[in-house]
């Protein structure tokens, strides 16, 4: 924790203009990640985790906009950069991979050509050198016979291979930070295991930091050093992975744990969370989780709880924590 963070997101707020006025998709989120470390961001659909990653890259689609906050990357505020400079950061110092590699690759060009394009945009090399870099990048992501694969089109590759190509493309520009938004969600579990191992090996080789966005608690547990749990646009709990998993404090985090069926457990019922995530245009007053929370009381319906320390480097936004102290 002593090392200066590579990426330091400070109190960022991203809003979308709708007929009901401006609604926040990300509402005052602060997170950071140090070089060589992995930050896992977990949450369900609509919690704002993808909008957060798009905010870091300044790629929030209209009618959304970043209303306030700072995104410090190597000490520079990305939100204050001119668009031209931002463009060299995107895909350069910060790489990004998405869930669906088929929609992120151009179907009418060979994959090698696409990697070369990225390399030519960010590095001062010739087309011939770029080809060499592309082949080398494919080799690094363990694609067999890369000299041949560079000539192939995305549709000729399997889902796992396509995701490897995306990773190769991101890595060809030697990023300091890789943002991976649900990188294995569309893949089968044995292929997922291959890709996660690959990401870990590449991180050890290059020392890059990873921001991993996922809904899968298993994937987070395996990959992340630090974990942030998001709900309805806010971080509700954050800390070292061992603390968030071993000493979960927020009732939403606990509800997620109760909801996943365990491979080692045969109990009859899952401890589900009642209700659904509130839409950003209709957020409840007080704690945003209170209508679904088993522990909510009158105070929770009025006061938005701040993130408060619950352990070393471990914070949670719950007025009722620790919940075991509440009389049943």
């Amino acid at each position, binding site marked *: 924790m002593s090392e200066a963070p590579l990426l330091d997101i400070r109190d960022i707020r991203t809003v979308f203009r709708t007929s009901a006025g401006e609604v926040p998709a990300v509402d005052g989120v602060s997170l950071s990640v140090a070089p060589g470390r992995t930050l896992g961001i977990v949450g*369900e*659909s609509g919690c704002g985790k993808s909008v957060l990653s798009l905010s870091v890259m300044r790629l929030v689609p209209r009618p959304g906009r970043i209303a306030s906050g700072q995104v410090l990357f190597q000490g520079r505020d990305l939100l204050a950069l001119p668009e031209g400079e931002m463009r060299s950061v995107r895909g350069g110092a910060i790489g990004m991979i998405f869930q669906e590699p088929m929609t992120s690759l151009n179907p009418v060009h060979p994959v090698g050509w696409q990697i070369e394009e990225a390399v030519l945009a960010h590095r001062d090399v010739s087309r011939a050198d770029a080809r060499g870099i592309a082949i080398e990048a494919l080799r690094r992501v363990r694609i067999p016979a890369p000299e041949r694969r560079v000539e192939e089109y995305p549709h000729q590759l*399997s*889902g*796992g*291979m396509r995701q490897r190509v995306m990773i190769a493309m991101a890595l060809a520009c030697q990023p300091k930070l890789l943002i991976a938004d649900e990188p294995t969600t569309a893949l*089968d*579990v*044995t*292929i*997922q*295991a*291959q890709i*996660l*191992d690959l990401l870990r090996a590449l991180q050890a080789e290059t020392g890059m930091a990873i921001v991993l966005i996922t*809904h*899968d*608690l*298993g*994937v*987070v*547990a*395996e990959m*992340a050093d630090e974990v942030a749990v998001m709900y309805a646009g806010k971080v509700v709990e954050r800390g070292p*992975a*061992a603390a968030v*998993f*071993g*000493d*979960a*404090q927020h*009732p939403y985090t*606990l*509800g*997620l*744990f*109760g*909801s*996943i*069926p*365990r*491979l*080692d457990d*045969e109990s*009859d*019922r*899952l*401890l*589900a*969370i*009642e209700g*659904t*995530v509130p839409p950003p245009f209709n957020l409840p007053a007080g704690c945003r989780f209170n209508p679904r929370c*088993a*522990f909510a009381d009158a105070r929770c319906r009025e006061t938005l709880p701040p993130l408060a320390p619950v352990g070393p480097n471990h914070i949670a936004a719950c007025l009722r924590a*620790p*919940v*075991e102290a*509440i009389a*049943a």
Partner: protein
Amino acid sequence: MTEPLLSVRDLTKHFPVERGVVFTKRVGTVRAVDGVSFDLAEGETLSLVGESGCGKSTTARLVLRLLDPTSGTIRFAGEDIAKRAPSTLKPIRRQIQPVFQDPYASLNPRMTVGRILEEPMEVHEIGDATSRRARVHELLRLVGLAPYHAERFPHEFSGGQRQRVGIARALAVSPKLMVLDEPVSALDVSIQAQVVNLLKDLQQRLGLSYLFIAHDLAVVRHVSDRIAVMYLGEIVETAGKRDLYRAPRHPYSQALLGAIPVPDPARKRSQAILAGDVPSPMNPPPGCRFHTRCPHAAARCREERPELRELAPGHRVACHLAESIPTPLIPSLAPHPPSAAVAKRLAAYAARRAQAAA
């Protein structure tokens, strides 16, 4: 033992691959399902699991007779329905109902939920207008929705609620067997848990049988009595859930279970990872189909196709070497209870919920 409700034998489905527009030429065959056999008893849940392209959904569609089998038999309640003419399938369809993965795509956006639930009863001529409306309200309550939801359209519901409507529609005609094709895969974890709980409750109350198709082995463990693991159109292992999760015998089952990430940062997944991709079902490898990725493959595996053999009562494996392959230590299967602090809080959570329900 009484006769199983559903008994499938040597079921195959081959899709021709053709080239040309006017003069088509057959250039190959996709062996999507290639000799699958299983039984499903009344009130039981059998899950078919495997990765994309293993044939699990095709098998579900064959049982539903949404696809015509190439060969094999599907005995349902004692009668072979594999070769029944489509025009005579209606009484069968009333007893075997599907629930699909995508509740957005499987509900008609122009019908109210009430109409969606009434339609199958009209098709099967069940009751009259008044009794159907009463039944709609009963069905909505059964799946945890409210009678006023009948007036609403599918787009007004969340994903989890839509899947409840999909389940209610299947229940409308009081089926014996539900074929559930990835019913919770499109849902968020907290919603997935609600729907899984609902399916278990309904099974208990109504005595339903489930053929459950899924790729998530943790969900499968939770809902199933027995499990069949599929690979490239074949069943490679079937077992009761306890046996399968305690000691998977087929190398593919072992790899599949070993690949699941465990929600515990202190425990790392086993490092032996299956290399490569699933081969094309158009040109499956000879012998054992898994031999190209199997760490134990011997000469015999490349030549001779292994039959499903019974290794222990109820535990069948299609592997020549099943006896000699040791059961590996799979970290994801070892008990990994939550920490004392989390266990205490989960208990408090469960107690509050029970209190609120009472």
